[in-house]
């Protein structure tokens, strides 16, 4: 099957930089705003910045919830959640009140200081990842490579099998996760220079 790459546009997030990063690896992604069209694609990015609640509310309002869930259970396709796009893959989020997430990778998303982080929040800037489990998504990425993060909340996984890499910032939190064909990074690969581009390449080739 030919690779057809989509970036979900649900009104949240800077999708242009993701689009540009993909162009650097000669991938012409389509920016898809209509949930009914997503079935045409087999590599799908779910970006996101801002708050969990705003993101999941928009997903539900526009009618993305079912198409994304369908996609995540289709073994011939893969999904990549970035930053808040990864966070909303969880069961619950607690930003601006409790909200139900997409419940694709079990866990919840909680403010990092509530989990014991006593450093400055938001966690902004370049931080390294510690790769705990080999995975297609981290191929050719050496342990301790740096990526660009912007977050105050982090994922708490129910099942540690989903954990690929962690990052330390007051607490050790999941920075790369994977369940079958669904991947997520807390950092922004599209803002992480060459290391980020390698991650995007890995996803496309996975």
């Amino acid at each position, binding site marked *: 099957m030919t690779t057809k790459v989509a970036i979900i546009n649900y009104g949240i997030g*800077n999708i*242009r*930089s993701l689009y*540009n*990063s993909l162009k*650097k690896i000669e991938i012409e992604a389509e920016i898809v705003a209509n949930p009914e069209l997503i079935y045409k694609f087999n590599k799908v990015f779910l970006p996101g*910045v*801002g*708050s969990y609640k705003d993101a999941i509310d928009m997903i539900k309002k526009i009618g993305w919830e079912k198409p994304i869930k369908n996609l995540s259970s289709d073994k011939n396709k893969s999904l990549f959640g970035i930053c808040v796009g990864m966070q909303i893959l969880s069961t619950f989020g607690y930003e601006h009140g409790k909200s139900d997430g997409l419940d694709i990778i079990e866990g919840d998303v909680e403010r990092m200081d509530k989990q014991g982080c006593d*450093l*400055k*929040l*938001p*966690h*902004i*800037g*370049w*931080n*390294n990842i510690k790769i705990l489990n080999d995975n297609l998504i981290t191929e*050719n990425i050496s342990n301790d*490579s*740096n990526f*660009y*993060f*912007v*977050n*105050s909340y982090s994922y708490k996984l129910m099942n540690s099998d989903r954990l690929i890499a962690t990052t*330390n*910032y007051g607490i050790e939190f999941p920075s790369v996760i994977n369940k079958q064909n669904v991947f997520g990074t807390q950092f*922004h690969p*599209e*803002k*992480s*220079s*060459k*290391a*980020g*581009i*390698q991650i995007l390449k890995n996803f496309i080739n996975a």
Partner: protein
Amino acid sequence: MLKVRIIPIMLWNGTTLVKGNKFENEKRSAGSPLATVKIYNSRDVDEIIFFDISRNNKIIDKDFILSITDCVSVPITIGGGIETISQMNDLFEYGADKIAINSIIFKNPNIINESSKRFGSQAITVSIDVKKDTQKYECYYNLGRNKSDKEFKDLIIECVDRGAGEIVINCIDHDGLMKGYDNELIQLASSLVNVPIIASGGAGNYEHFYEAYKNGADAFAAASIYHFTKHTPAEAKKYLVNKGVPIRENFII
């Protein structure tokens, strides 16, 4: 471990990049924005700050902003004359990762609350222009031309309480002189708030970055040192790594 960031600043006057001293009007030309941003990007700086000081950007020039943001694969903060949520919205759409605001916070401080609620605190940087008047640090706006009635220590706390995710501290007295940052000011700032502090104004050598780091800076913004000397962001990183500062080394497969 979180790394401290090396951030080149670009000042755009509507025609060319410029750089002056102490915010005075006389400025040296510092080249074309497009060529400069491409060089910074290829040298893998940690982030880029782009300030439009032309005051002609009430309506955001989409094509111009895109020409800059499209060649950047690290985060970019855009600021200068931003007064409305709608301008911010346009800039985010055209590829900005963060917006820096300054003068508007004196007229409409609520814009910090509104913008950080709308785009997230992490996307809203407040840039504060500071000058030491006898004993106190005073805050200025409108490119350093007007003095506000707010004292620095009150203003910085107010900005963070209202939702600023990051603070750029521009020391007007040190700007462009390349004699080092105002470390006392940086130390004061980092003791007052719990968000990242970007030191700006005065860097002339790598030791200046190290001094700012010791005083609590989370990032070092600089312009003249890169425009007018042989110093480079990559060399700065090497220097700081040797000093034991947590720095992102460039990625090599």
